[in-house]
């Protein structure tokens, strides 16, 4: 059964039932006796397509179409006239109103069905394309165009959003004391909604950081504020996010971080990789959550890798997820490479079941030069 819905508007009960029965085999169908009733139905739930007679009591097909087109919410619902008015003048009048088809009675039900399918499919394609475009636009805005430049370090970033992916976000800002604050996060959920929330959420984080930096540079203090916002804010009420805030002081080779349930960073050194293991609860769940700052030093020749769950949830040839250990293994292989992130991803894809990453991927690589 197709989940798309079709509204039939026909005053003749026999014909109405026939259409209801035949089209109902393929679509979720409702049937109205005239234009007025059709408008009531549309008010409660907009169908994916309307098939309407022209001559009907109370409100005819032309009046119905006009009423639908006047309302922004219903103006684009695909519309087919199914009518006994087979004269050219009526056909011309019908087609001039911008409908999708004009079918005259007696009609071939299979032809009607074929047209319904074509029209619904085409409007779905447009919708999907539009969503993809909006999604890409959001994704672009969620990612930085430049990276910090500091002597003795390389700061690299890569992201590859999927159209149906989630809401990954990354941002950085330089503070007045010469340190940097990095934001890496993932809004739970998939698709356009997650991307939209990621977008609003990132704007909020930016302004929170901006407003609070005068009084604190503590990632944990910022995190507490962001958590309180996620829980109180009406729009973001159902939003949960993992977030990693990192303050990097290049002069001291030091990173202070607070991790709210995000993928744990990996510190890759010549002697192997280790997980930066402390983390707190994910955001948006509990107003009482305590967040703690932790700090570590980046040794010479080591690199810090931060990422989102597209990496660790990627599936290996053996059918298991990479997990932290799997990502760490590829990260170790990438340490000496001229393009570490590229190497990391290539190494992972070599071990993956698929030739591509299944989800959004995002990687931030901060490498300190060897002495």
């Amino acid at each position, binding site marked *: 059964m197709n989940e798309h819905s079709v509204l039939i508007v026909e005053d003749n009960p026999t014909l109405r039932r026939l259409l209801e029965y035949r089209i109902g085999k393929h679509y979720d169908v409702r049937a109205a006796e005239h234009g007025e009733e059709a408008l009531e139905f549309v008010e409660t739930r907009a169908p994916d397509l309307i098939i309407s007679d022209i001559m009907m009591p109370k409100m005819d097909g032309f009046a119905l179409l006009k009423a639908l087109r006047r309302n922004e919410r219903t103006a684009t619902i695909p519309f087919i006239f199914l009518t006994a008015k087979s004269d050219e003048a009526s056909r011309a009048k019908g087609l001039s109103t911008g409908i999708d088809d004009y079918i005259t009675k007696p009609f071939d039900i299979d032809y009607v069905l074929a047209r319904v399918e074509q029209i619904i499919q085409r409007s779905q394609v447009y919708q999907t394309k539009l969503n993809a475009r909006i999604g890409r636009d959001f994704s672009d805005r969620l990612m930085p165009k430049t990276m910090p430049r500091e002597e003795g370090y390389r700061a690299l970033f890569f992201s590859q959003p999927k159209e149906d992916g989630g809401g990954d976000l990354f941002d950085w800002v330089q503070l007045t004391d010469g340190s940097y604050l990095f934001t890496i996060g993932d809004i*739970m959920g998939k698709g356009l909604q997650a991307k939209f929330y990621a977008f609003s959420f990132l704007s909020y984080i930016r302004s929170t950081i901006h407003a609070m930096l005068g009084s604190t540079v503590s990632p944990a203090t910022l995190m507490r504020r962001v958590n309180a916002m996620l829980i109180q804010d009406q729009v973001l009420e159902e939003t949960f996010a993992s977030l990693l805030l990192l303050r990097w002081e290049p002069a001291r080779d030091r990173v202070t971080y607070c991790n709210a349930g995000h993928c744990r960073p990996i510190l890759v050194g010549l002697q192997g990789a280790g997980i930066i293991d402390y983390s707190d609860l994910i955001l948006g769940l509990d107003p009482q959550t305590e967040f703690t700052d932790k700090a570590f030093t980046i040794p010479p020749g080591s690199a810090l890798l931060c990422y989102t*769950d597209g990496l660790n949830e990627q599936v290996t040839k053996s059918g298991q997820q990479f997990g932290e250990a799997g990502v760490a293994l590829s990260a170790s292989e990438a340490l000496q490479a001229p393009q570490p992130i590229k190497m990391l991803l290539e190494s992972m894809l070599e071990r993956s079941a698929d030739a591509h990453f299944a989800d959004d991927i995002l990687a931030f690589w901060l490498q300190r030069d060897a002495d």
Partner: protein
Amino acid sequence: MSFTIQKATPTTAVVRVGKALDFRNAADFKASCQEHTRAGTRYFVLDFSGTGILDSTGLGVIFSLYRQLTPIGGQVVFASVSRPVQVVVQLTRTYKVFRQFPTVEAAYDALERSPAAGRATGAAPTGTA
């Protein structure tokens, strides 16, 4: 849709999550749980035995349920947590919020005995017989 929800008492429901809770069935899961909440369920035991996939959308609807129940004195607990689910729970540190039990029965017993459960049912007798 792989989950099933079974009412164990007027206030407790056991949800057998099944093979997967992800972006495909998360909306159904949410709607079903909400229906039970409206009908008076305050305690949900989520049985994760055999659950291979719990993605972020799936985890999100469990969080929604938690957010919805906490203010009204309800609880969400986990039972028979499978390895893949354990990984997600570890990563998001949500074991701090959701109590875990080895079996549905153990979870059920703990909820039955918990003083919070007694308070929430209001008319429940105090003390032991």
